């Protein structure tokens, strides 16, 4: 039966991402085969290229802004009209040879530089959260599925509890009351704390099925220790699900970080992040639409590329397992 697959570990309202399927515990699909398939798919290739550009932007941000001439925090009072509330001079939000993507109203900061540096924040936070939720989800899922009994009971109740929680409200509430400290780290921790149960639930279910399979029984009968069982027999068989679940969760985390910054509890000023930029652009949308269009487009394309890619990877893995 096709029950609604596990939801991606994300906040419904902030960002809704496609569902992972119901990957069974078939033989693992090789990474080479996945990449090979993706390379032949035009849409997937396009997404990969775009993501590559974003990642390169993030990595080489200081070099790129040296070329473009403006740092992310540099003010340019000459680019804005103080008498009109600080709206950028010129059309299209002040796009010019000087400022490639125009400038931010009220201070004249260069939008191109802020997009480039914002990519750093978005990607670092999303990837760190993915890694952390991945580890938490796999470890707790395995523990619950393998040991069952009270371990399973305890872990499952915690998962129920976390999933019943109005995560978005709670994340904002926690983030707004915590001292500023190291915001990115806090964001990763908070996002992961509410994200891991979605992966853990799938891992738990599959571990339970796998633990009863003949090959595990056989290994156990031949005297393999629990640790060895988990790492040699079960974990490799979960690879497909882990890859699918985690790739599908990355766009969710990008959206969540942007959403939290949008709601004003993300990175602290003057740090640029796409969500923070969109947030500042809200009151300006009718006067300076480019101010939201530019970060909005980058955010949208990044999430879209990751979603399409995740979807393709899933179908490749599903197809691999079906055969």
């Amino acid at each position, binding site marked *: 039966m096709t029950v609604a697959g596990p939801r991606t570990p994300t906040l419904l309202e902030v960002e809704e991402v496609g569902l992972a399927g119901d990957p069974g515990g078939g033989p693992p699909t090789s990474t080479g085969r996945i990449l090979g398939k993706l390379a032949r798919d035009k849409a997937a290739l396009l997404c990969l290229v775009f993501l590559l550009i974003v990642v390169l932007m993030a990595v080489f941000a200081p070099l790129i802004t040296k070329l473009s001439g403006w740092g992310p925090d540099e003010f340019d*009072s000459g680019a*804005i*009209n103080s*008498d009109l509330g600080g*709206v950028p001079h010129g059309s299209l939000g002040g796009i010019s040879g000087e400022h490639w993507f125009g400038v931010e109203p009220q*201070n004249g900061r260069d939008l191109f530089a802020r997009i480039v540096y914002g990519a750093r924040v978005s990607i670092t936070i999303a990837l760190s959260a993915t890694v952390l939720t991945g580890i938490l989800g796999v470890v707790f899922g395995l523990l619950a599925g393998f040991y069952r009994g009270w371990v399973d009971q305890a872990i499952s109740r915690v998962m129920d509890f976390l999933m019943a929680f109005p995560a978005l409200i709670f994340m904002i509430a926690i983030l707004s009351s915590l001292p*500023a400290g190291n915001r990115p780290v806090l964001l990763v921790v908070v996002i992961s704390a509410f994200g891991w149960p979605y992966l853990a639930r799938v891992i738990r279910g599959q571990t339970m099925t796998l633990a009863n399979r003949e090959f595990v029984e056989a290994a156990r009968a031949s005297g393999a220790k629990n640790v060895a069982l988990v790492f040699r027999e079960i974990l490799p068989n979960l690879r497909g699900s882990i890859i699918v679940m985690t790739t599908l969760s990355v766009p969710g985390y990008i959206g969540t970080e942007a959403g939290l910054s949008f709601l004003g509890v993300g990175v602290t000023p003057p740090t640029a992040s796409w969500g923070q930029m969109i947030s500042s652009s809200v*009151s300006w949308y009718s006067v300076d639409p480019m101010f939201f269009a530019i970060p909005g487009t980058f955010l949208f394309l990044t999430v879209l590329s990751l979603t399409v890619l995740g979807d393709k990877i899933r179908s490749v893995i599903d197809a691999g397992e079906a055969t």
Partner: protein
Amino acid sequence: MLAGLVLSGTLVLSACSGNAAGGESQTSAGPGGPAAQGGTVQVLANAAFSHLDPVRGFDGGVNNFYRLIYRTLTTQGAAPGTEGTKIGPDLATDTGTPSDGGKTWTFTLKDGLFFETGAPITSADVKFGVSRAWDPEIGIGSPYAKQLIDAPASYQGPYKSGDLPTIATPDAKTIVFHLKKPFADFGSVVAQNTFVPVPKGAGAGTELDSKPIASGPYKVSEYKAGASLKLVRNDKWDAKTDPVRKAKPDGFQWTFDLDGATIDERMIAGQGTDVDAIAGTIQAATVARVQTPQLKQRTLTGLGGCTTYMGLNTTKKPLNDVRVRQAINFAVNKQTVRDAVGGSTLAELATSIQPPTVLGRVDYDPYPSPEGKGDVAAAQKLLTEAGLTNGFTFTLDTRAQPKMQAMAVAIQQALKPLKIDVKINIIDTSTYYEVIGTPSQQHDAAITGWCPDWPSGATFLPPLFDGRNIVAKGNSNLAQLNDPAVNAKIDEISQIKDVNAANAAYGELDKQIMALAPVVPLLYEKVLTLVGSNIAGAYLHDGYSGGIDLVSVGLTDAGK
């Protein structure tokens, strides 16, 4: 008083207020034209009133609103500019008669005064209302009654301690106050909200916060906390007893909790009942949209009467060095700070501590730079003298609010060339003033503001810079400046009997303090408000943080 937290400015005298709709447009239609009798004025508001209980509420917004439903012994005028801040009689027949060298003050009530209930307003009701200010749970508003009027140390308001013996009511029309020490301007003090009459025995707990007992021209007919408030005529109010309140419309309708953007959109569109609407200052992003002649005709602008500044904690290294503080004063680019709040239409660059609306204020610039953009060279020179060529790091406290954060970022950016690394510390809005007002918790610097409650520097400079006022909690001397010369000067000025001479002396003291650079004056923020096309009789009142004077506003065509 702290700007933003509480905006009172009850008695701000103002010499400078550029009302777009001044006297010359009285005859034509538009916001300055004459208001017709009748209709309902709509008010679109961001936040609800802090309190409807007059002893609790104390900021520019409620003070303005209270005049519609409450009366006090005296009150401010109802006109643009300095006329508006002149004190005149309200419930009382005059502005009071001093005796005993200004230590005892006697007021006589007019005839024909009634509460909305129909009960006559007596001197006992005024006394009862004032005595509520001593209740520790209720008296959280204007502190002046408690500070000036003599009372037993243990007195805790009428509900807990009963009658206050130091206020005498020899008959139903006469009330006599005995002060702790002579106070020449007590006639202005009794215009404070705390002097609103409350029927004897009523108003315990939060009763008045939900159901005020009106003495003014309007009464509350429906109040949904946090959502809406409806005022209708109080037919027990007699216009003949009240020369101040024009009270032309038949009612007022507040809608609270509206988004700033929503309000601006609705005011620009001006559809339906919004033609009869007034609102607060527009957002920075809206400035560019109100430049058409049609919309310009509907705008009112003027100074808010406060100073926004950055306090520098003189007890912290290296800010304890006056050269470092002066360097920061030179280096801050006030243009970018102003752009952060919305540019030249929403603020003027500040140079002195006292804003232009304070009498006796001297216009001077101790740390000049071209167009206020900062003089990095002058700053660098001072820092080199102080041995800080390689800069330093300091923490700047700011509120978790986009505008305040933007100002902090502008300052951070301006100090970068001096290798001064500003760490921005964002503090939650609800506890901001609590944190920076606690010397053990405040950091090196903080962005805040101050508005005068009094017609002179007396309510501006001593609270902020008297070194003997530094307290462990609720401290307003953020710089923690304790300079013997400044303290001595403050004492000297308080002895001056002539108000104008005292004001002039405060203007000089402003200069003396700025030589020590304990603060960086940043901006004098302005009010820029858009009113509906059917609004008439509207002007900005200098005594209410530049809000539209509610007792005079009305509609051009009441039948619309």
